[in-house]
């Protein structure tokens, strides 16, 4: 039996990795993947806490997060593909036409 705290530590590590990825990486696809990693870290935390509290609401939340993440993929990929078509690059450093 693995203690629940192991899962929580893992989820915290995954979440931090995702957040770091968003801040450090420059490719918008990789940033997007890092965001998905953050969401899935939260899912892991939900499932672990569900075990602690012996209720189901955490697991149900995971369903919603997954459904929302799928919708996010659809919107995000469409935007990234549109950007790629018009500038042949998905590097966020090249997105700098908006400056004050």
């Amino acid at each position, binding site marked *: *039996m*693995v*203690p629940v705290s192991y899962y929580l530590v893992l989820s915290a590590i995954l979440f931090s990795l995702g957040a770091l990825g968003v801040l450090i990486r420059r490719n918008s696809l990789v940033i997007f993947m890092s965001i998905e990693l953050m969401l899935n870290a939260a899912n892991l935390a939900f499932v672990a806490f569900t075990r602690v509290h012996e209720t189901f609401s955490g697991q149900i939340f995971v*369903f919603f997060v*997954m*459904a929302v993440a*799928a*919708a996010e*993929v*659809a919107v995000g*990929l*469409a935007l990234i*593909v549109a950007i790629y*078509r018009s500038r042949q690059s998905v590097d966020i450093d090249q997105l700098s036409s908006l400056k004050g």
Partner: protein
Amino acid sequence: MLLEYAAIATMILVTALVAVIAVVLGSLFGPKRPHARKLLPYESGMTPIGPGTRRVPVRFYLIAVLFILFDIEIIFFLPWAIAFRELGWYGFWAMVVFNIPILIGFIYEWKKGGLEWE
């Protein structure tokens, strides 16, 4: 506690070992007769055309995204199907309501031509 993982660890080790042995034995004892055609990337026996990193048509992306959207509803269907009898008519009508927006999305996608390949 870690002992519970012993079985999994053993399995990983054994599979890795079998794979390594197979590859090593093959390269040690197998006959080697290099030939230009043999060294080409394998594409079901055809002669490869162009580089392997060709661009994939954007169509594939559209199909993939549409697939994800309609695929994810399964995660709501599965628990519902398991508890179908206990949920009764209430569960049935809830699922009907759940399906209406998906149906609207489907009609939208169809009429917009998202399903046309050409």
